Each structure stands twice: as C-alpha cells, then as structure tokens.
C-alpha cells in the first residue's frame, strides 16, 4: 500500500486513540442523558418536574446516542476481532443493555403523549432503567476487560467464550460498574444544574455532590485493587507492530499489578488519573458554589480522566484473555487492514469535525433553561 502516507503502526496507534475519543465522546455526550434518566425518580417529585427533567435531554439525546452507534461501527471497522470477541462473549450482558436502549427512545417519545398517571409512570420507569442499566453495565464491561475475559481462538480464528453471564459479575467488575454509574450520575446532575432552576437544580446539587464524592472514593479503591490484588497482563514476546492482525503470534503472561507498568515507564501518563480525581473535585466545588458551567466542565474532565486511565493501563491490550493469555487482543494484532484503517481515518477527518460543528449549532439553538413555561409553548415537547 505505497500510496498510504502513514505506516501500519502509526495508523493502529491513531485508531487506538480514536477508539478512546469515541468512547469518551459517548460518555460525555450521552453520559449526561443516561445520568439524567437514572436521576429522574430522585430529582423530580411531580409530573411538571419530571417533564422538565425529561425535556432537558429531550431535544439532544438522539444525536448523543449516535456516539454509541458510531463507537460500535468504528470498533467493527477498525477492530473487527475486538468487535467479534467482546460482543459475542458478553452476549447476555449486551442483551440487557439492548433492552435498556430499546426502551429509551420509546420512553422519551411516548411518555407525554397521554396524560394518564399510570401510563406516564410506566415510561418513567423505562427511562430510569434506560439510563441506569447502561451506565452500570458498561462499567461492568470495562471491569471485565481489566480482569481479562475467558475466551480462546481455534486455529481458524473462530472465537470461543468459556464463561457465563454471572461470571461477569465479580466484585472488581461491579466496582468498575459503580465508578461508571456514579461518574455518569454526577454528569447528569451537572447537566440538570445547568439547564434547570429551583427545586430540581437544588436536588441535583445534593445528589451530584454525593455521587462525585463516591466516584472519587470508588475510583481510588479501584486503583488500589489494580495495584495490589488484580492480575494485569504483559506481552513477553516481541510483537511485530507492522505485522498481520493475527492474535495468535505472541506470548502473554498474567502478573499482579502489571496494569501499572505503563505509568512507571511513562510517568506523564499519570495525568489521566489526576484529571479523573481533579475533574470530580472541581465538580464538587462547582455544585457547592452553584457554578453550573464549572460543574459540568469538571464532571466532563473527570470522565475523560477516568476512561483514559483504563485505556492507558491496558495499552497495548484491547481485550486480554484470562483463559488463553496468548490469544489476548492487542493494538498490534487485532486491527483491520492497513488500507481500511486509512480509509476510515480519512472518513473520520472529514465528517467528525462537521458533526461537531452542527452539534454545537443545535446546542446553541436549544440553549437556556427548561421551564414549565418553555414547555407549554411546544406541542412537540416530551
């Protein structure tokens, strides 16, 4: 592929970064939608308040969810082995997420079409589940990636997953799930302080402070666990960073604390966990000082830091195998071909900036607080 100006190694690294950017983009953009959904029963006490909360995210959640769709598509296109292994291995967990994701659009759209309290209560539950479940389970999934997942390949690279659904619910994975849940609840609460007034914003501040503190404590606990109790993985053979994407050409061993190796080798990477803590701290101060924009910025920085911490700890692993460590997927042996990575990079460079511009435009048009009065004027409001 002589006409491609970037070599295979560089493109694989770029796509590892882009994978991170897409996941962080999803967590920041759709994360507050999930958080707001999960906070719905707690911050809103009557139907008017619930409508305000729902309409905070109503106009934008559909666009935000495309980050998840794009994340899925990008993993398929750039990391097909990762897509095939994780989506089929986590089969029932994916089903649980899908149920939540199926309920969400209909919850938003159908809830306020009928003014019957029982009807609305059903959809409020759907919106709560649709926010709470993905926020928790996606974190559990990351916890399992850090623990290693029991999969192996046969010699035709057909993947076999040797674990059940309940095997995913280990204490460490649940801890990771709680970090994710608390972090997105904080982000949702931050959004509510930004877009609402009065009692809803007050309750959001109270809950947001608690969940931000919980995020810090749980994230620190996770760090200690990773350092002293959790097996990380180390590649023990030399990997050909320009070689074909075949995960069976290397050797890997499990070693406690190995996920911290990158931080001792490259101390600058410590910036990721620091941002995780710092962002959440800023969010706490923002909640207390009633600085809505600072709060939101803080929780976004916290999310960026926490997800980057997981990604940098794993590098170069994408999905380690606890059953057959040598079959683990890494950045250097699980990507698509050189040409596909290049074409996808071109497509991303052209379209992602355009997406960001029109997303910003939509937020600008929809700016301002959501109030009962603003809803009353719009027959399309949820």
């Amino acid at each position, binding site marked *: 592929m002589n006409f491609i100006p970037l070599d295979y190694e560089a493109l694989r690294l770029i796509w590892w970064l882009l994978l991170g950017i897409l996941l962080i983009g999803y967590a920041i953009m759709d994360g507050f939608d999930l958080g707001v959904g999960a906070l719905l029963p707690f911050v809103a006490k009557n139907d008017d308040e619930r409508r305000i909360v729902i309409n905070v995210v109503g106009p934008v959640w559909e666009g935000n969810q495309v980050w998840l769709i794009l994340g899925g598509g*990008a993993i398929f296109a750039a990391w*097909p*082995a990762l897509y095939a292994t994780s*989506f089929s291995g986590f089969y029932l967990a994916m089903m649980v997420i899908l149920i939540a994701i199926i309920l969400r*659009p209909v919850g938003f759209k159908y809830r306020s079409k009928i003014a019957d309290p029982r009807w609305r209560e059903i959809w409020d539950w759907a919106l709560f589940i649709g926010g709470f479940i993905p926020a928790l389970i996606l974190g559990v999934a990351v916890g399992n990636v850090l623990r290693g997942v029991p999969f192996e390949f046969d010699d035709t*690279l*057909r993947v076999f997953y040797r674990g059940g659904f309940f095997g995913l619910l280990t204490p460490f994975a649940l801890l990771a799930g709680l970090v994710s849940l608390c972090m997105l609840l904080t982000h949702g609460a931050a959004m509510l302080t930004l877009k609402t007034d009065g009692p809803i914003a007050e309750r959001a501040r109270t809950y947001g402070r608690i969940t931000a503190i919980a995020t810090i404590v749980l994230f620190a606990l996770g760090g200690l666990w990773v350092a002293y109790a959790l097996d990380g993985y180390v590649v023990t053979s030399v990997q050909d960073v320009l070689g074909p994407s075949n995960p069976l050409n290397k050797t890997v061993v499990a070693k406690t604390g190995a996920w911290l190796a990158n931080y001792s080798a490259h101390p600058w990477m410590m910036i990721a966990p620091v941002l995780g803590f710092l962002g959440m701290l800023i969010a706490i101060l923002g909640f207390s000082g009633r600085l809505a924009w600072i709060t939101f910025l803080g929780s976004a920085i916290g999310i960026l830091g926490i997800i980057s911490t997981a990604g940098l700890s794993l590098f170069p692993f994408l999905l380690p195998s606890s059953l057959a460590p040598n079959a683990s997927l890494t950045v250097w042996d699980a990507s698509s071909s050189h040409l596909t990575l290049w074409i996808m990079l071109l497509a991303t460079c052209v379209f992602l900036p355009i997406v960001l511009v029109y997303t910003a435009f939509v937020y600008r048009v929809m700016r301002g607080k959501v*109030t009962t009065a603003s809803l009353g004027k719009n027959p399309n409001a949820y």
Partner: protein
Amino acid sequence: MIDIDVVTLSRLQFAATAMYHFLFVPLTLGLSFLMAIMESVYVMTGRDIWRRMTLFWGTLFGINFAMGVATGVVMEFQFGMNWSYYSHYVGDIFGAPLAIEGLMAFFLEATFIGLFFFGWDRMSKVGHLAVTWLVAFGANFSALWILIANGWMQHPVGSTFNPDTMRMEITDFMAVLFNPVAQAKFVHTVSAGYVTGSMFVMAISAWYLIKGRHIEFAKRSMAVAASFGLASALSVVVLGDESGYVATENQKMKIAAMEAMWHTEPAPAAMNIIAFPDQAKQDNSFSISVPYLLGIIGTRSLSTELPGIVNLVDSAKERIRAGVSAYAALEAVRANPKDEAARATFAGKWQDLGYGLLVKQYRTDVENATEEDIAKAAADTIPNVPVLFWSFRLMVGLGFYFIGFFAAAFWVASRHKLGVNRWTLWLALFSLPLPWVAIEAGWLVAEYGRQPWIIEGVLPTFYAASGLTLWDLSLSLAIFLVLYTTLLVVELFLMVRTIRKGPHDRDPIEDTSPAHGASILPLPATASPRL
C-alpha cells in the same frame, strides 16, 4: 463443531429483528421527504395550513422514528453478538460502511431530529425548513451506506482473502462504494420507502375525507402524496434491482429460484406466471408460462441464455471441487507460512475457497471431501424455491398495483375530484398495509434468496455464527419477541389515537419567527424571553 440449531435460531433472530426494524425504516424514508416538501410549500407560500400538515405528519413520523431508533441499535450490535465469525471474517470490509453510516448519515439525522421537533419557535422559517431537509437527507444517506454494506454481501467486490489473518481484506474501496448491486438496491429500496410514506399519507387522508373531517388538510396531503407516490412507484419497478441480479453466479441462482426455472431453456426463456415448485422433485408440478418473456426481461437480449437451477447446481459442483483444492492450498500455507510457492498456489485459487467451506457442514477435513459430500454441498446452493417464487410474485404484483393506484389517484387529484371520488378513498384506506407486505416480501427475496451464503460465494451462513448456547439464543429470541410485540401494540395504539384526534385546525404554535428571508441563525438571546 458447528451447532446447526444455534445457527437456525441465530438466523431466525436476525430475520425477526431485521424484518421488524424494516417495518419502521421505509416510513421514515418516505415521510421525511413528504414533510420536507410540505414545509417547503409553507415557506414559499406562507400559508399556515402547510405548516400544520408538516406538524401533524411530523407527530406520526416521530412515533414511528422512535421505534426505528429502538430497533436499529440491535441491528448494528447483532453482527458481533450472533455472527462473530462473520464479523471477524469480513469486518475489514463490511464494518467500514456501517461506521461511515453513523458518521455521515445517522449523526445528521439524529442531531437535527431534535431541532425538527423542538426548534419550531427558536428558528427562522427557512432555518427550520433546512433542518427538515437535513433530517430527510440524513435518513436517505443512512440507507445508502447500509445498502453498500448489503450490496457487498450479495456481490463481494474489491477484496481478497489473507491467509495470515484468516479473513477477507479490502483491496479496492471504490469498487465496494460503486458496487452496481449496491447502487441498484439503494434506488430500489429508498423508492419503496417513498411509496410507503405516500401510501401512509394517502390512506389516513382518505379516512379523514370519508369521515368528512379536516377536508382542506386531507386534500392537500393527498395531492402531494399522489404525485410523490406515482414517481416513486414507477421508480421502484422500472429502476428495480433486477439489473443488478445478473452480475454473479449466485445471483443467477436467485433469479432461477425466483422464477422456478429448474432447467436451462433455449434463449429467450419463458416466464412462469404461476407455478407450484416442488423442491424435492426439482421440478414444477404445475405451471402457466409466457414464452420468451423471462429471457427478454432478465437479460435484455434475445440470445443470452439464463441457466436453470439444476444446471447451476452442476456448475456449483465444479466450484466446490475447486474450493476443496483451494482449501488444501490454504492448509499448505498455514502449515508453513514462509512457503512462497504454496502462497502463490493459494493466490490463484482463493476465489473458490468459499465453495470449499460449504463442505464444512459435512466434514471438518474439507481437503478430503468425497464426491458424495460435494454433491450434498452443491444441493445446498439451491435456496427455498417455492418461498422465493411466491414472495417475488407478491412483491412484483403489488409493485404494479402501486403504479396503477397512484396513477389513478394522481389523475383524480389533478382534476380536483379528490373528495368526490369515494371509491378512490376506500381503495386508499384499504391499501394501507400493502407497501409493508411488498417490502417484507422483497426482503425475503433478497436475503432468504441469498442462502446458503451470508456473503455470496465467500462465506456460508452456517459457518458464520457465534458459538453461543441454545439457552443464550432461546432467551434472547424470547426477549425480542415479547418486547417487540408489546412495543408494536403500543406504537399502533398511539398512531391510531393521534390519527383519531386529527391535526389542529388552528395554529398550535404562536408564530414568533421572523419574516421571510431570515438567516438560519437562531434568534439573539435578548429577543427571546424564554432563555
């Protein structure tokens, strides 16, 4: 070894979720353009009834769109969940159009759909009109990329098998992009969506006219739908995707099965109008046919032969023999990856590898396949002929009906007789479900007719499924059936309720937008007290 029950349940689940998703997509494709047309008329004429039309059809659009979004995520995740070997084997090619669909099309549609519903009093008229058109274009770009992906499953171009990674890899992205099958399918599928949207507007408006409600609203809606529907119905049939079918061997098998043509006939072949195909006997127990017709339509010539099913099975045997040899060549490369001679041998044979994999259903050591295995594998290349034959006839019959229906409606509309001609109204009302019947029949022809291949000629379906357990699949299938059935009932209930309530006869929104010609920028903050 491969568990055929798991494969069968995986196929059933994919078919159920895809066909269900496709109840909502065509209406989104069609209705979005109809709304954009109506709103354009509003902006050009300033007559408020056109805005109320956009709002009302927009409400129904929203109810439908929510279901499309809910069921669409499932489609994207299912390849990895249920078809993990497929995802590994062709993800290098198939993943790209899916990702670009998200990036270029679905982002556009989903971001602006919020403004479509929430932006009416926050934007200028022209600004909001632009949003509506962007939603419509986003929806249709989505269809383009999905059909580029699907077109590659039917006619896999621009790629090669890499023995080092044990998968197909892209060699020519432009060939994938401009795949003739994908282009034909795109036009065919979106046109079918436009017909669906038009029929939806026709039928509901007809109901209002029958009831004597919202007369001006209904007449205008029908006039738009009749003209858009006529153009689309012609496009569906005339630009139908038959042209794309001639491209490859397996598409020939699909045509032969659709036409229940068991034996090659002298060109031009006769077309069976009615037939009772008997899959076991490999013949039709009864048929009525028109001489020459199929040859002329199918090949656009008088001298090109169309091969029959039995003859195509014979050619499949040849390719399976070649495939067994390709498989042996691949084994040689894998035994010693540094053997350049073995690589060269395989490079000359890889095109038949997929046919070799057909034997996997009968033995794991493909290289030792017997003539009996090869005969069985070749027989597997015949899709279900009776189902294809009748679904195809159902689809085509309805396609011609739509041309007639919309032509009649257009004629009535252009003579301003829409409220007078009551038979047109009842016909429109009872035709409401027909586009969906035609579309699902079309899906069966295209995808069920592709069997036994998941990627035609490259990867057999049974070989592509995930190694899940029967318990996993029974549970997920049960969840989908219960959840989808419940949601469909709720959706139809809300649709009917909204239709019964009918459009607002007065303006539901205070018009706060500036006059004509305003830019698409939002109002300045100081001018809007709600901020």
